């Protein structure tokens, strides 16, 4: 495998980007990521992005966002209608071939103009499930209810995950939900939104974007002091139907971890930190078990997606946040996770390491 590293990243996340378009948002983030390593677009060998037409409310919405990159002269470029973490995967594959040394990855999502929990219903089986419009909170609650009834966790333990996220998020300018002194009792005292989940159990809906520069081998060492090497990356998907899966597990997260660890030569048991892309505290628990994170792993040092969840970018933000922990020297090995679909249907795991 060719050595590929994250060499820079830029993140912006807020509750609602009311007065900014996707293009305006990405102009500043893409420039920030390129400027951090003194690169211009002509230096970039491949560009890959992720976004959703359903959020933009417009077909081919990503075409406009190309203006934020500056695609003149023409560029080698592709787009996935997936979280940016999968765009990162595609860029990593392109870098493996050896034709290019530098890639730009970005993704963004602006769900605030619509009702996100309802919009997500159109991800479900279009013939038998979506017509019933089950909202995303209700679907997440089904999973959480099963988890609690399985005896794996209690509502108190889920609240403790919410507290961990909020406390870790203190100091993260991109976190929407942060508190240094919140307690489990505080969380349990709040109303249930979708039984058994409280507001603090559900990821804080956000608008935002993320841009990242990847570089290969010596080029990465030239560009920054401490490249964050992608030692292993893999993604897998589970069956779609909620009724055919055991919702208290995430087999595809386990499988992706095994394959990523195969490439990396180290696994989830030896990372210092992990950033998880979970829509609920219950999902964070399922992932912790399914990925096999050790007890001494610091989970979600940024607050994770629970503290701010930008649809289509939350996964790429996890990669960026984990990479920052390694780049700063706060961690030597990190695991970053991204997911897609209802109840953790699809999962990507990336193992990062500093020199």
């Amino acid at each position: 495998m060719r050595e590929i590293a994250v060499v820079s990243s830029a993140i912006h996340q807020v509750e609602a980007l009311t007065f900014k378009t996707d293009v305006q948002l990405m102009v500043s983030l893409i420039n920030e990521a390129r400027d951090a390593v003194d690169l211009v677009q002509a230096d970039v060998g491949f560009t890959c992005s992720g976004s959703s037409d359903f959020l933009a409310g417009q077909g081919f919405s990503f075409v406009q966002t190309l203006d934020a990159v500056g695609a003149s002269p023409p560029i080698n470029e592709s787009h996935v209608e997936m979280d940016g973490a999968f765009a990162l995967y595609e860029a990593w594959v392109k870098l493996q071939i050896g034709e290019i040394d530098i890639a730009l990855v970005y993704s963004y999502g602006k769900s605030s103009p619509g009702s996100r929990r309802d919009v997500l219903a159109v991800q479900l089986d279009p013939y038998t499930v979506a017509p019933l419009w089950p909202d995303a909170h209700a679907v997440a609650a089904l999973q959480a209810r099963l988890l609690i009834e399985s005896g794996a966790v209690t509502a108190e333990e889920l609240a403790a995950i919410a507290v961990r996220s909020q406390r870790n998020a203190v100091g993260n300018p991109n976190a929407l939900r942060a508190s240094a002194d919140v307690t489990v009792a505080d969380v349990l005292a709040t109303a249930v939104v979708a039984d058994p989940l409280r507001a603090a159990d559900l990821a804080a809906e956000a608008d935002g974007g993320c841009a990242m520069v990847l570089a290969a081998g010596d080029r990465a060492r030239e560009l920054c002091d401490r490249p964050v090497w992608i030692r292993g990356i893999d993604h897998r998907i589970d069956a779609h139907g909620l009724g055919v899966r055991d919702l208290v597990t995430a087999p595809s997260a386990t499988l992706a971890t095994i394959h990523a660890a195969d490439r990396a030569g180290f696994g989830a048991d030896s990372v210092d930190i992990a950033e998880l892309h979970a829509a609920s505290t219950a999902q964070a628990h399922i992932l912790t078990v399914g990925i096999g994170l050790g007890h001494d792993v610091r989970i979600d040092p940024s607050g994770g997606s629970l503290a701010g969840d930008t649809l289509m970018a939350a996964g790429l933000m996890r990669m960026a946040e984990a990479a920052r922990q390694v780049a700063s020297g706060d961690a030597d090995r990190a695991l970053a996770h991204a997911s897609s679909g209802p109840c953790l249907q699809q999962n990507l795991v990336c193992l990062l390491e500093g020199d």
Partner: protein
Amino acid sequence: MGSLGEHIAVLGVGQTKYQSTRGDVSIAGLVREAALRALEDASCTWADIDAVVIGKAPDFFEGLMMPELFLADALGCVGKPILRVHTAGSVGGSTALVATSLIQGRIHQRVLTLGFEKQSESNATWALSLPQPFSVSINAGAGGYFSPIIRRYMARSGAPELIGCMVAYKDRQNALLNPYAHIHQPDLTFDQVVEAPMLWDPIRFSETCPSSDGACAMVLGDEAAGDAADGPVAWVHGTAMRSEANNFPGRDEVSPQASRDCAAEVFAKAGIVNPRSEIDVAEMYVPFSWYEPMWLESLGFAEKDKGWEMVEDGSTEIDGGDLPVNCSGGVLSSNPIGASGMIRFAEAALQVRGMAGEHQVDGAQKAFGHAYGGGAQYFAMWVVGASKP
């Protein structure tokens, strides 16, 4: 091959019948039909497939957001990786190229790639006309967007008025040789093409693509898989993708620089110096008839302003032409948008495998597959050959 990485072979191709409404199958049934045919052609089973890459145009076309989630089961990829590509109209080509890169980068040995559209599930006009804040929609559709560009080409090249009709007549005749093609008009005459209603001057109704349901799939394999295949395979000799912005001063919309750059790269990788003489057959993305001569020039098959002469003198006809173009009937005869680019790539592969049936070009050794999208901004191309590069 001028590019790095593992050699890639097209092991199998599967297509559905293209038609206005495939009311007999669900979206899952449609994609599975194409996937199963590709697996059968490749003498593979689901177990042989390491990963799946799918592509389609906007999710609004079916009203299904991120369809890879719903289709994971139908595409046999539970426990496997699946990616979903979306690069506007070029998506079918780009999807095949993402799948190619998974093998080229030595991540996987065999990849199933598939493009589809089931336009009958929703309403494409609605899907493309959603009102946007602070912007005025011209509601002109793709034809309204491209007709001024075609006018510009006609003015600058001095092409005769009926070149577009000649392309349309040729492609609809070719479609009669392709059982999968959507539009079959056995009694169509050239005069009927000319007399058809004008939709977006100079584009007649007879010179525009249909809206189709359909799916196209390919099984791609690494060198070992290609060597081990019993039947003929197509070897990938070169691939390239390019994108450019929609609007900037001096943009040549008739022959975008992204198109010219993409062609230069793909031919260089394939070791092709003279595309006109070295390519035996081309499948190009021609949704409006005039794009055949326009792309012939942009891609380097013809000199600037001379592409229409190739149409006029029959060079692009399957019978007697030295560069048959769109022997399958092309996008003008079948247009399941998300699959349309992949059909071009797959038809190129079928030609060099000698498996194109009645629309086979005898002895085709090298074929060119092409797709474009957006406001002629996104390009994906490949060159495939009968022998290993």
